[in-house]
């Protein structure tokens, strides 16, 4: 087994996997960032926004969460591929667009999916903030933004972190689906490697190991984040 692993890594697949891991991280981190942005905005709209807008957010979260992620990537990719390639022709940026279009679709898709989950996570977290905490901020004349940054987000973070962690772990797995648009992330690297080297078991073991490393690493970051965000909040009486 060990021999096989060494042979695989020597044969250049080590690099392939590293590039795959970088791609996985690149897409999932940016996707998650987009998702958190959508999540916080969507949750505030659902709780405080005008009715028509919060209705729109509900439609988005319901549909995006309900249909398979692969379908979303499919629709995003093949739904836009024609117009994007025409746009590329028109702007003479074919190369650039061909090169970055898949990654953009990947990030957008992961972001939209993670965003739809995040909306609900943040909505629950926002509701858990005692109203008095926000009133105290209003009473000293804080602006909407200041209240958001100084009170709402710090307190919400503590309530939202467990749910966010889930969204992140899900987003990380979902990046495997972007192989569809031609990006080589960890799982696709394993699949290609399995085909080329005829060692499926070893290849998927390496892929699983990489996912697990990323998973554990991010888990550790979340533990630290919870410790930080929980200062003073843990024993709120």
């Amino acid at each position, binding site marked *: 087994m060990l021999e096989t692993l060494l042979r695989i890594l020597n044969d250049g697949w080590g690099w392939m996997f590293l590039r795959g891991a970088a791609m996985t991280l690149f897409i999932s981190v940016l996707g998650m960032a987009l998702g958190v942005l959508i999540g916080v905005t969507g949750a505030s709209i659902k709780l405080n926004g005008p009715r028509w807008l919060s209705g729109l957010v509900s439609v988005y979260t319901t549909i995006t969460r309900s249909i398979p992620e692969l379908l979303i990537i499919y629709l995003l990719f093949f739904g836009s591929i024609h117009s994007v390639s025409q746009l590329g022709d028109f702007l003479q940026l074919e190369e650039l667009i061909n090169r970055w279009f898949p990654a953009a679709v990947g990030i957008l898709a992961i972001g939209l999916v993670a965003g739809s989950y995040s909306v609900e996570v943040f909505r629950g977290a926002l509701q858990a903030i005692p109203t008095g905490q926000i009133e105290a901020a209003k009473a000293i004349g804080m602006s909407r933004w200041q209240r958001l940054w100084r009170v709402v987000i710090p307190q919400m973070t503590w309530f939202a972190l467990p749910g966010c962690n889930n969204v992140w772990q899900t987003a990380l797995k979902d990046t495997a689906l972007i192989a569809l648009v*031609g990006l080589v992330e960890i799982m696709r690297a394993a699949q290609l490697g399995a*085909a080329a080297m005829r060692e499926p078991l070893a290849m998927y073991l390496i892929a699983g190991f990489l996912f697990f490393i990323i998973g554990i690493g991010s888990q550790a970051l979340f533990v630290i984040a919870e410790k930080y965000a929980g200062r003073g909040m843990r024993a709120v009486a």
Partner: protein
Amino acid sequence: ATSYKIGTEGGYPPWSMVDAAGNVTGFDADVGAALCKKLDADCQFVVQAFDSLIPSLSANRFDLIISGMSYTPERAKRINFSLPYAVEDAIFILKADTPAIKADSAESIYTDLAGKTIGVQGGTTHGAFLAKVAPKVNIKDYETLDQMQIDLDSGRLDGTFADLTSQSRFLKQMNTTDYALTETVIKGSSDPETLGYGIAVGIHKDNADLKARVDAALCELIEDGTIKSASEKWFDIDIANYDACK
């Protein structure tokens, strides 16, 4: 010279594989290289998941598909196909003591299989074919051949139905006497409507000119033995379709 981009799956041995440096190898790669030489073109492979090959071709992300793709009427609604340059026969692996192993006609195999559970690879033509000719068979679809083969190993299946090439390779790997290939091979030409007309090159619908040139080039490749030698190199047998150009 003109240049073409060729879409291929990359993860489907021995048809299409990529090595760590990104070079495409396999039967498809050899056919593709030979074809480009004949067309006097520079070619570049684009590796992409099988499911997205046809839509990507439609969107002009590449010019040709060479990826062990069977020519079926349904696919032909979306893209053009070249002549089928190769045909593959299909075959069953069954328990060695099943009478169907020795059956001398396809029909008697089908009747024999009634009520049995047979694995096929999802997304291939074999499932649809089997469902049509042997409706009493219990069909299980697998994502990959590997999974299907593991399940046969673990005793959840009575048999599998797939390409002759992959079946014989698998049986060799299994190294067992419990299972065997049926003596009767299911000819690809027996039901082209369902089993497909054979392996062909995918071309964009609007590009009739390219289709004509590819067809001509493929005929030459079949005639001069290039396909045959590539086939024997990768499959140990000759799957070149000598009827294609007649």
